[in-house]
């Protein structure tokens, strides 16, 4: 039984304690269930916490962006135009109007930091050096964080570090201009740290700045009003730094620039590279000042090499073609460059990969050299989004340089885009900020008139908006310039309005004067503003290219017209008798043969014209020229029977004149048209077969005849060889033949004097050996009609004035002062600029004393600019002109002139711009070769300012002579090649004196080729009314009159342009929108400009000069030594057709930061300052870099280094003002000091304070970083031109109530990028 019981017990052992087991199992299950629940809840909780932390981090990531935008908005608020701002990577500085006389600039007002800093805004005491992070920043992790800290990424091959901002690999690939010097706390892994301060964020959104701590300390304390507390704990921290996108190279606008400039000398480069290899349409990479001339190669050369074609392949729209980067000649048959169909890049990545090529599912690189490394290393140097505001320093709209027709139907596509860029809209009203032209010549309508170009007033008086804009400019020039101080009204009290009128008229009459082949709504053929060049138009091609100067009140522009710089009275015999007793010496006299006394003579008047805007296109005057007062003139008391008032209409197209048709007719040159009054266009001829005819010299018809002559013969007194010329005042009025308004009145007062009476000359071959005449004198001696007829095509010098004539003239004076009168000192621009030219500006013609010398037949300086200057000019000596000896005849060295004694050399009728080159004989004459005689008042020995220093004058185009010009915009094209008689053909008419063909299809019509910027105003005089000759607007640091060395601030004594405010600040009132190949300019902003302020704050140890190098890469400097004016040893730089191009005067630019151009930038930054305006580039010397072996060697005593640049330039004093300023015209429009686009790099951390820790202490051992967010955002400030709130800045009603654009700027975030593994 026991056993059974036992056995039972053994059989059911599990039954004992089963309940507890069961219970335990259930409990275990419940426990497991509950634990699972706990784990799940914990997990969920962690997840929600992570979500919350990520939300917190994301929320924090908005802080830097918003904070920076607020800083930018505050900094760019111009306070109604009373302050300006300049941006740089990391900061924006503001400047008021209080000038610092030592620099000419206003001091710093405030600096708005765009990086996290304990003091986000500082005042004038800001010291950039104190901003550099300390060397021990790595041991202060709660004070500083490295925004450029790399992360380790598992790459395809091996792990690699990826940097968010700067990849040090850029140093290995040789990105030019990139240097890191003395970076604090570098490591092998991190050679380019960007330590930035943490700013702590409290729960209520306030900022807290930690107290300073020492290395290694784990606790960071806070004090002061914004310290964290238990109620307002720390919830996060942010660090950020903002890059200025305009300090990078824009991949959407840059390509690879290849220099092009209008030929200005007879150099090899000018002839073969510039004239023959002009950029054709769409070859933007060669248009001076176009953003496409900014080069990518300084950033990318390490990968892509030097071949420009590589860069064209990568750049959107830009393509190789046309001149193929200046390597192939072009002509009228060269097709425009075909633009590619690339779209604009949104990111650098798109630039690197070819959208069209996909292999293995991946995009292929756009170039074999482009790799992943390329992308990483170039990110710091390239951008797809840089854009800069184009507003004045007063924060108001700039004026567009491009003139546009008032009527929309007369605008072509280019005009419409230009208008779009510079218009605001108020309600339904367009508010243009460009000057408009009233009427154009419609090429489709042969009955159309010549438009408003022929009126001196219509474009101003008939367009109220133009009046408002002029008044707007007046208002701006009366305000102290922000950033610099002082105003132009005070600087130029007598000339401010004159300067403004010159500027307005420069644009009106120098730009867009013809737009052939570009359809408008009104005309499929386009329009021309000036009278057309198309032969056969009903009105005839009269006055082609002529534009009457604009007048605004008492001020006057230059237009494209002529003034008169000399009037010569010519007495010529009409009847004679033999007078064996008359002993008059004459040229070529041989033996003792008799002369012929004039029994009757007549008089006629010749005038010497002067055009202040020589250049292309060539043009013809179509003017009514009325001479009044000649009726009072008498000789020996006998009236010369000249009319009291007679009008001559210059009535022939110079280009068609049958004069010297093989070498050009001078209608591109300054002293043009001397012979034009002797021709007319017969409108009775069929329109398609009109050729100029010589006038009927017996008629007084203003068109067909010659009215400036005696109405009848004057009986010559007998028994005397001399007689009294009464002299007396005359008045000459000039007006367009298509408009009755008088454009200019010129007064002259011929002094009375004793003159030799005319006689009849006869060549010695007309006498036999005994002196007995075998033939009568030729008819040409007594018949004016015969003289015109005999002149034929090439012999005007010989026949128009004969040796027996008597000539007295009044010509432009070369003196600076005469009696009590101030004179223009030989600066002929004065004669063109004044509405009324006083008689005191003219002096007796001929060399000193000739006018009053009764033995001298000729006292004049008539200069014929229609011919090459080596042909000489009309009689001025009664003997062979020794000056002609130096001419050496034709290109073979033969004296080919048939009657050289009828001609005077250019020495005799010209003058000199440079001292020591004016000699008529002796060593000096060899310094100024025959064709190089400048266009100045005769007898001028040196172009000197009133203070005696060398003045401003212009280089003539091509190989034409230099002189007092206004730097006309180049409107030429490659439509024809012209032979220059030296065996060389060159395109565009630059090496001829008057050949030009239109561009019928508009293939070369490009606004940015015609004008790059307002720097082209640099030859406009500034002293027309204050009588300061040879002074023009100054847009370069090296005017001829500068004495101060390059290392010092220039002084007002060096040039009035340096006095405050400096002239270059006028540049910022104007802009030239870039509308090709796409709208690179938008309303009042332009993409791709490069910020001059490349210094990086606070990381001044990182040097990123790459973008400025890109801007300088294609800039060319021209420097002409005095020796180039002579024939030897290089050949004359202004030599005529037979001078070989042996000399090179073009240079590149040295960019070295120690000795080269960047030295000027570095000096500014080293002084703790920045550039306030891009126009300040005009204060920076561009250090030339020889590019050709033909460059003359630099003088040994003056090293080609920045600090000695002024001495260097003194060796190149034959360089004209426009040539000195030319490189700045290429640069200025591509530079900026203000950016509209910024990239904010940030690092934010959500923080969690440990429980029980002090709330105002951050203890990194106890407290924790909950989450982190790194990334960047790209923000842009922009303006909506249709914003109805934007006022009309030119509204006269608000003239005294300054307004500004800054409040109307908006911001947008273009892009956000997260930086994560």
């Amino acid at each position, binding site marked *: 039984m026991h056993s059974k019981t036992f056995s*039972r017990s053994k059989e*059911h052992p599990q*039954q004992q*304690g*089963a*309940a*507890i087991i069961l*219970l*335990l199992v259930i*409990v275990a299950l*419940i426990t497991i269930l*509950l634990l699972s*629940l*706990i784990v799940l*809840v*914990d997990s*969920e*909780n962690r997840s*929600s*916490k992570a*979500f*919350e932390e990520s*939300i*917190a981090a994301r*929320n924090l990531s*908005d*802080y830097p962006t*918003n*904070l920076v*935008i*607020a*800083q930018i*908005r*505050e900094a760019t608020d111009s306070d109604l135009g009373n302050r300006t701002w300049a941006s740089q990577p990391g900061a924006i500085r503001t400047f008021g109007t209080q000038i610092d006389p030592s620099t000419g600039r206003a001091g710093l007002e405030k600096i708005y930091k765009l990086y*996290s*800093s304990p*003091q*986000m*805004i500082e005042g004038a005491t800001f010291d950039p050096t104190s901003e550099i992070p300390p060397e021990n920043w790595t041991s202060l992790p709660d004070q500083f964080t490295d925004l450029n800290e790399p992360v380790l990424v598992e790459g395809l091959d091996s792990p690699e570090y990826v940097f968010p901002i700067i990849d040090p690999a850029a140093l290995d690939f040789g990105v030019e201009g990139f240097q890191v010097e003395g970076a604090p706390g570098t490591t092998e892994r991190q050679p380019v740290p960007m330590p930035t301060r943490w*700013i702590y*964020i*409290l*729960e*209520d*959104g*306030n*900022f807290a*700045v930690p107290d300073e701590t020492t290395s290694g300390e784990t606790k960071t304390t806070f004090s002061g*009003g*914004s310290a964290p507390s238990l109620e307002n704990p720390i*919830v996060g921290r942010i660090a950020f730094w903002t890059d200025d996108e305009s300090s990078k190279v824009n991949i959407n606008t840059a390509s690879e620039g290849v220099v092009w400039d209008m030929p200005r000398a007879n150099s090899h480069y000018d002839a073969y590279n510039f004239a023959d290899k002009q950029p054709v349409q769409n070859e933007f990479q060669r248009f001076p000042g176009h953003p496409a001339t900014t080069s990518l190669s300084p950033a990318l050369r390490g990968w892509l090499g030097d071949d420009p074609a590589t860069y064209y392949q990568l750049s959107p729209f830009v393509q190789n073609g046309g001149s193929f980067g200046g390597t192939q000649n072009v002509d009228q048959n060269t097709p425009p460059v075909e633009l590619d169909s690339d779209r604009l890049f949104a990111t650098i990545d798109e630039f690197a990969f070819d959208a069209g090529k996909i292999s293995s599912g991946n995009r292929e690189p756009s170039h074999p050299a482009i790799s992943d490394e390329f992308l990483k290393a170039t990110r710091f140097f390239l951008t797809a989004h840089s854009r800069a505001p184009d507003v004045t320093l007063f924060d108001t709209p700039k004026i567009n340089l491009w003139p546009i027709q008032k009527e929309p139907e007369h605008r072509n596509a280019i005009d419409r885009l230009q208008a779009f860029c510079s218009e605001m809209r108020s309600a339904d009203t367009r508010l243009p900020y460009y000057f408009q032209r009233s009427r154009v010549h419609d090429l489709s309508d042969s009955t159309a008139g010549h438009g408003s170009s022929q009126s001196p007033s219509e474009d101003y008086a008939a367009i109220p908006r133009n009046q408002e804009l002029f008044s707007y400019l007046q208002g701006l020039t009366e305000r102290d310039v922000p950033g610099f101080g002082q105003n132009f009204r005070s600087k130029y009290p007598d000339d401010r309005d004159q300067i403004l009128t010159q500027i307005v008229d420069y644009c009106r009459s120098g730009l867009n004067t013809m737009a052939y082949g570009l359809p408008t709504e009104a005309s499929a053929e386009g329009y021309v503003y000036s009278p057309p060049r198309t032969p056969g138009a009903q009105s005839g091609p009269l006055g082609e290219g002529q534009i009457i100067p604009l007048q605004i009140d008492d001020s006057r522009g230059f237009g494209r017209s002529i003034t008169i710089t000399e009037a010569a009275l010519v007495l010529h015999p009409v009847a004679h008798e033999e007078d064996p007793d008359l002993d008059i010496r004459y040229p070529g006299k041989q033996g003792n043969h008799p002369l012929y006394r004039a029994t009757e003579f007549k008089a006629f008047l010749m005038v010497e014209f002067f055009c202040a805007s020589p250049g292309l296109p060539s043009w013809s005057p179509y003017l009514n020229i009325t001479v009044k007062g000649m009726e009072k003139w008498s000789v020996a008391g006998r009236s010369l029977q000249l009319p009291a008032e007679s009008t001559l209409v210059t009535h022939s197209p110079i280009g068609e004149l049958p004069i010297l048709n093989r070498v050009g007719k001078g209608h591109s040159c300054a002293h043009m048209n001397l012979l034009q009054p002797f021709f007319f266009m017969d409108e009775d001829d069929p329109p398609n077969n009109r050729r100029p005819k010589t006038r009927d010299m017996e008629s007084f018809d203003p068109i067909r005849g010659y009215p400036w002559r005696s109405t009848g013969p004057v009986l010559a007194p007998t028994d005397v060889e001399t007689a009294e010329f009464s002299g007396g005042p005359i008045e000459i009025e000039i007006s367009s033949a298509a408009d009755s308004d008088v454009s200019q009145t010129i007064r002259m007062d011929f002094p009375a004097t004793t003159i030799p009476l005319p006689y009849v000359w006869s060549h010695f071959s007309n006498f036999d050996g005994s002196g007995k005449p075998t033939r009568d004198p030729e008819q040409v001696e007594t018949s004016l009609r015969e003289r015109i007829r005999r002149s034929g095509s090439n012999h005007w010098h010989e026949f128009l004035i004969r040796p027996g004539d008597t000539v007295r003239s009044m010509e432009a004076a070369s003196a600076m002062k005469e009696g009590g009168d101030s004179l223009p000192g030989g600066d002929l621009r004065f004669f063109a600029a004044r509405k009324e030219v006083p008689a005191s500006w003219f002096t007796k013609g001929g060399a000193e004393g000739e006018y009053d010398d009764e033995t001298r037949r000729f006292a004049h300086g008539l200069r014929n600019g229609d011919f090459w200057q080596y042909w000489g000019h009309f009689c001025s000596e009664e003997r062979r002109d020794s000056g002609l000896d130096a001419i050496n005849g034709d290109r073979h060295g033969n004296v080919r002139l048939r009657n050289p004694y009828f001609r005077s050399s250019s020495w005799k009728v010209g003058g000199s711009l440079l001292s020591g080159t004016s000699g008529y004989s002796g060593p000096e004459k060899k310094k100024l070769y025959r064709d190089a005689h400048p266009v100045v008042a005769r007898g001028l020995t040196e172009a000197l300012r009133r203070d005696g220093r060398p003045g401003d004058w212009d280089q003539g185009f091509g190989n034409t002579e230099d002189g007092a010009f206004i730097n006309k915009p180049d409107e030429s094209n490659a439509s024809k090649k012209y032979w220059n008689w030296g065996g060389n053909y060159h395109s565009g008419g630059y090496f001829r004196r008057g050949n030009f063909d239109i561009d019928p299809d508009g293939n070369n019509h490009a606004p940015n080729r015609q004008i790059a910027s307002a720097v082209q105003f640099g030859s406009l005089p500034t002293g027309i009314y204050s009588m300061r000759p040879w002074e023009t607007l100054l847009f370069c640091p090296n005017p001829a009159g500068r004495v101060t060395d390059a290392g010092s601030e220039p002084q007002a004594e060096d040039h009035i342009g340096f006095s405050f405010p400096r002239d270059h600040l006028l540049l910022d009132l104007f802009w030239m929108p870039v509308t090709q190949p796409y709208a690179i300019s938008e309303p009042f902003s332009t993409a791709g400009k490069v910020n001059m302020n490349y210094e990086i704050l606070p990381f001044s140890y990182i040097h990123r000069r790459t973008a400025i190098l890109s801007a300088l890469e294609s800039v060319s400097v021209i420097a002409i030594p005095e020796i180039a004016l002579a024939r030897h040893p290089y050949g004359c730089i202004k030599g005529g057709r037979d001078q070989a191009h042996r000399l090179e005067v073009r240079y590149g630019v040295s960019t070295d930061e120690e000795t080269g151009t960047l030295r000027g930038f570095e000096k500014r930054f080293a002084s703790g300052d920045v550039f306030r305006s891009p126009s300040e580039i005009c204060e920076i010397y561009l250090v030339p870099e020889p590019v050709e072996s033909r460059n003359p060697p630099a003088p040994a005593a003056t090293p080609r280094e920045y600090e000695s640049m002024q001495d260097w330039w003194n060796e190149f004093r034959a360089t004209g003002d426009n040539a000195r300023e030319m490189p700045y015209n290429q640069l200025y429009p591509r530079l900026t000091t203000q950016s509209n686009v910024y990239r904010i790099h940030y690092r934010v951390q959500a923080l969690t304070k440990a429980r029980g820790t002090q709330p105002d202490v951050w203890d990194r051992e106890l407290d924790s970083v909950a989450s982190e967010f790194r990334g960047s955002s790209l923000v842009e400030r922009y303006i*909506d031109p249709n914003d109805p*709130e934007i*006022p009309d800045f030119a509204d006269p009603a608000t003239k005294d109530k300054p*307004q500004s654009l800054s409040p*109307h*700027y*908006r*911001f*947008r975030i273009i892009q956000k990028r997260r930086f994560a593994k």
Partner: protein
Amino acid sequence: MRDPIPNPPSRCGLTLIEVALSLAIAAMVLTILAGTLGSTVEFAAEGFDRFAMARISQTLSDENRMLDWNQLGTEIQDGEIFFFDERGRRLDSKSEEAVYAARLRLVDSPVLPGSVESDHLKRLMIEVSARGRAEDPFAALHPVRRFASLYTRMESVPSTSKGE
């Protein structure tokens, strides 16, 4: 035939000791677990709240970021309260579904480092309470989470604000 010997019930069932021990263990474990469960539930609720509140703050922050600068002071009234359901979805008005309430407080610019105020920054304080059904969800006793967002002016400055 002999009847089988029946098992005494006391030998086959649970002894008192076993039952007592089991109950004691069960009671102890369940007590422990019950205690944990409470905090777990609370923990879970906290997580839900955290999630919902973060979402609410984000929603409000994003919504207000869409507003123009000037609407921040007009469309958004200082102290305005919004209600949300248990999943953080916005309700048109206070209702039975309301679990969370959020109050917006528009605060002037934070003082920038360097003791400077900016005219172009505003803070939006978002206070979120999990007592959405309470008469005053933001009464002092109720826990409230605070979130601060920073706003800047993206639009142009109207002429009236410049005194023009």
